């Protein structure tokens, strides 16, 4: 195994072209707009929808930052997978954690 060969040829550092200023500023404006939206919505009584909408807006904002500011849109597959890893795992934690909290019943749960 392993016929010795010279170290592989040095690859130069190539990176995708950075995003245009307009894209970045556009994302920023969108972020501020979403911020305004979420603050406004918080004053409208919508019951359970308040929380859901606030969360949806936060996710939208996070996606904007991840995809545009952090360049994940144009990044390698590996980077994309790793960028999602933590969030996916957090959902595992949250869902199984709440599977307990949301199903607490006193004895005799089965009628």
């Amino acid at each position, binding site marked *: 195994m392993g016929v010795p060969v010279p*170290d*592989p*040829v*040095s*690859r*130069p*550092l*190539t*990176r995708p072209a*950075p*995003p245009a*200023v307009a894209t*970045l*500023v556009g*994302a*920023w404006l969108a*972020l*501020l707009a979403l*911020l305004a939206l*979420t*603050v406004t919505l*918080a004053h409208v*009584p919508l019951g359970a929808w*308040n*929380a859901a909408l*606030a*969360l949806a*807006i*936060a996710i939208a*904002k*996070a996606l904007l*930052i*991840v995809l*545009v*500011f*952090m360049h994940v849109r144009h990044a*390698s597959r*590996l*980077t994309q997978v*790793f*960028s999602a*890893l*933590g*969030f996916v*795992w*957090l959902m595992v*934690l*949250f869902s199984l*954690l*709440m599977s307990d*909290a*949301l199903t607490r019943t006193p004895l005799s749960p089965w009628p």
Partner: protein
Amino acid sequence: MPTPMPIASEAGASARVPFADPAQQHEAASAAMWVFLSTEVMLFGGVFAAYLWYRHADPAAFARGSALLDAPLGTVNTAVLLTSSLAMALAVRAAALGRRRPALGWLAGTAVLGLAFLAIKLLSWRHEWTRGLVPALHAGAALAAQPRVELFFVVYFIATGLHALHVLAGVGALAVTGAALARVRDPGRWNPIELTGLYWHFVDIVWVFLFPILYLVR
């Protein structure tokens, strides 16, 4: 014995041992940053989990606690941090195009906005202090005999405190990055600034979630 070059070495002609070439080194550095950010997600995740658990246990108490916070200040602070992210993205862009001075300028802007965020955060903590909303240290009437409201503030201070620590570390990283960027020969081929950027944006994302769940509970 091969002595590796400093981690923040210039990825110009040669790569640091054990890397074969600069491209590989770059790949490794950015993979490492993303893995590190995943660990950060999980670290904050524990705090978010506690939040979720107790908010579910007593939604009304969390709404009462949230109402006691200074929402306008929080909103301004969110805007400040979002703007700092824009500055950071512009700094990374300028550096990638090889424009050192604009890059340094945007970096400085990012740091100033970061410090502004911290200043405003301190101001809002002061408000909470004067109104006796600080569990254990200065708990006034608003928290008396309301363990679950107090719990809201415990979570609030741990979450915002941990986040502020990260902002502080980010400002430090910006300073180090700026100093290195000023000296580096070819900014266009120098990648640590990207990593600093990733970290900064991540800290921003954490706040994007903290803001509604702390300030806008109804």
